[in-house]
């Protein structure tokens, strides 16, 4: 498979470039992890500033810092966080990744399950009342600020009706619950976050699906299928839908890196200790190793996601198969 090998080899310089640019941009931001703690703090004298700076290696020139970081990275050592906790970066990421992936995957599944049928139906019944109604609905979700919707739902289901927990990822008495009780507790806490995050994503996917479908329906082979006398269901679901679904593979591939990225606003509102908060706090504290760690993982996932999408695409669609 020389194609795959070539693609994988191509990823190396891209990844390298990403790290250089990220490092440079990060360093260009004013302030560093030390001054953010020590600035205008009467308890800090210059001795303390120097001490902390040396401890983190920030007294070295920037290119040396980068080379040191790169050398550790090549051995898959993400380094230690510059936040006061000074924990290994990989621990901080691993601790937060599961909940973020869980919510993102669930909301992705929910989006697919709702948006694809909506898209298909809207296309089939173009300009009908259903089409217009769902368009309004999905754009409402797209336009509505998620934190606002979240608060409204929290007030209704959490405070007023007391059906669902308001925030967090598990109850305070979680440890005392039975195994099934624990699963139910987890699920209860996931309902609002997953609903709110999926609602905002419906528009993109359903509109995308709708335009794909419209395009496919106008193709000659659909006319042919209809001319053969196939009934409308078979035409739509066997011939049109399959072809319209192909571009979704690309979309899925592109969303792979998104699985580890969380939204800050969203996680803040629901008090979910996920990747969004970690990244935001790291940027605010200029916690360079953590920022770089998350960016590198994100870059790798983006590249791998693209590669997978291309491979799946060529496997699913004979028209674009390479080298044949």
């Amino acid at each position: 498979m020389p194609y795959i090998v070539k693609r994988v080899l191509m990823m190396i310089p891209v990844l390298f470039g990403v790290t250089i640019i990220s490092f440079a941009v990060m360093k260009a931001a004013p302030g560093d992890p030390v001054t953010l703690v020590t600035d205008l703090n009467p308890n800090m004298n210059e001795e303390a500033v120097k001490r902390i700076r040396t401890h983190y290696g920030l007294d070295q020139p920037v290119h040396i810092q980068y080379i040191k970081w790169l050398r550790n990275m090549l051995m898959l050592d993400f380094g230690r966080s510059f936040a006061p906790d000074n924990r290994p970066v990989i621990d901080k990421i691993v601790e937060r990744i599961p909940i973020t992936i869980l919510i993102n995957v669930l909301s992705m599944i929910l989006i697919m399950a709702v948006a694809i049928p909506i898209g298909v139906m809207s296309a089939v019944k173009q300009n009908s009342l259903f089409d217009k109604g769902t368009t309004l609905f999905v754009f409402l979700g797209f336009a509505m600020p998620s934190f606002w919707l979240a608060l409204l739902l929290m007030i209704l289901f959490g405070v007023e009706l007391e059906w669902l927990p308001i925030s967090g990822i598990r109850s305070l008495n979680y440890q005392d619950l039975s195994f099934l009780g624990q699963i139910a507790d987890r699920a209860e806490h996931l309902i609002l976050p997953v609903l709110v995050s999926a609602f905002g994503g419906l528009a993109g996917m359903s509109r995308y699906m709708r335009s794909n479908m419209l395009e496919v329906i106008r193709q000659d082979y659909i006319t042919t299928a209809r001319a053969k006398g196939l009934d409308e269901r078979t035409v739509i679901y066997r011939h049109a839908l399959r072809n319209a679904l192909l571009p979704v593979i690309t979309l899925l591939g592109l969303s792979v890196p998104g699985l580890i990225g969380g939204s800050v606003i969203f996680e803040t509102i629901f008090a979910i200790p996920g990747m969004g908060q970690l990244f935001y706090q790291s940027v605010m504290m200029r916690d360079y190793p953590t920022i770089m760690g998350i960016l590198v993982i994100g870059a790798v996932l983006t590249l791998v996601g693209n590669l997978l999408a291309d491979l799946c695409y060529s496997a699913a669609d004979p028209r674009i198969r390479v080298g044949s």
Partner: protein
Amino acid sequence: MVRNSFFRYSVLIAGLLVILGGMDNPAGSQPGKAQDQSSISAGDEKLQPAYGDMIIRGSIGDASVLLPVLATDGASFDIISLIYNGLVKYDKDINLVPDLAEKWEISDDGLVIRFHLRKDVKWQDGTPFTARDVEFTYNLYVNPKTPTAYASDFMRVKELRVLNDYTVEVIYPQPFAPALGSWTQSIHPRHLLEGKDATKSELKRHPVGTGPYCFKEWKTGEKIIVDANPDYFDGRPYISRVLTRVIPDLATMFLELKAGHLDQMALTPLQYQRQTNTKWFKENFRKYKYLGFGYSYLGYNLLDWKFKDKKVRQALTTAINRESIVQGVLLGLGAVAHGPFKPDTIWNNPNVKKFPYNPDLAKKMLAEAGWKDSDGDGILDKDGKPFSFTILTNQGNQLRKNAAIVIQRDLKLVGIEVKIRTVEWAAFVNNFINKKDFEAVLLGWSIGIDPNQIDVWNSKKTEAPQLNFISYKNEEVDKLLELGVSTFDPKERKKYYDKFQEIIAEDQPYTFLWVQDTLNMIQARFHGIKPAPAGIGYNFTKWYVPKPLQKYQITP
């Protein structure tokens, strides 16, 4: 996402006002929520102090590290203060009282402090606490390899001698009045840390101290649990468990409180004044307010020609209606500041010259200083240049921004044009403060418990990154502040600081704006809370829930 935060909060607050306005009654009428109060009238003997129950506190940030020498943030110290002790501590009136040291002697020349330690203290793992732990803590702080922010007070120590297991002598090269207060710093366990790299220690996440609560569990970004230490030397705390929940969003935290899932949270002025006055809140919660340890000010760059004349600075203070800022911006929850000390402490000099709001007088003072509107454009001018300047403040602090707007309007009335600019914190400090590239800044200082003010006002501390960035220079102030830190007798000390405050009031290098109230809300079942100048946390171990009101069963 940061850029949107103002928009986000304004919409959110507007939204909340509407929503909360409509739901006060139904929440109050839910029978399940008020059951804690059912037996409150059952007679006083039932309300006696009792052990048990749990307090659930809301915190907007998670702790970062629970080893005191490495911690720098408030959320970490909130937990640390429950687990560790210093040799001395501050009582409700902010006086130093015994903690791990049962008494101490200070030599007449003020150079030697001899601490006599308690003999009945054990670390939470059972190891006895001794003078060796104090020695170790001192060495840990001054070790140049320890990346601590709090070494400076200990660096002044010439020598620390362990006389026996329970006596320590600290020798200073010159008298240093804040010395005793610096021993409020947490004492670290030698037997767990010696010979190890503190930055990689287990204790960062599993602290072991001598304090009233023992560490139990920490789920990052979720919660931290500590349990009462039954062997605490000062008596077992009444409340059996303290659970601190991390809820980064204040609106969410408020909803959790309303749903009965939280027992304590800090309130915003808006929540305190407008959103918590319903019957349900009054029955289920008590509100506490007390002056906070910090003040806000408008600081003038004294290198700028406009602000060189103290007459002009006095006029500016006279033109600013500080009372209306306290009423309008803080919703009345604070006090006008007239100097750098907390108004209810002994160090404050209430008799300094004040400049009450008087726009007409301000205009006259400005005219005397040569500022007149000679071209009739409504803006004062002098030597052909208009009186126009920019107030710089940091992004993300809505109170400061609102105050700047009030000041803008006040100064416009006397013919001064003000522009307002907000800048992200790191850029604010690096590009403006440290380069002295500003005309006026709206900022705040926290007020230390010791009155030492050298860092902010000494004429030698004007170079970046030092704190006298407005370049205030007054030889008499330099002398008074030097005397202040080298004198032990509090009466003598107070004389120096009183005089210092008079000079600062006369010079008006800052327009002191306000001291804000700290606002807290605590579930009504908690008893024994007594607000004092030190706040409410000083007697936390004596807070209790009477047996009939206890809500949670705690089995450690």
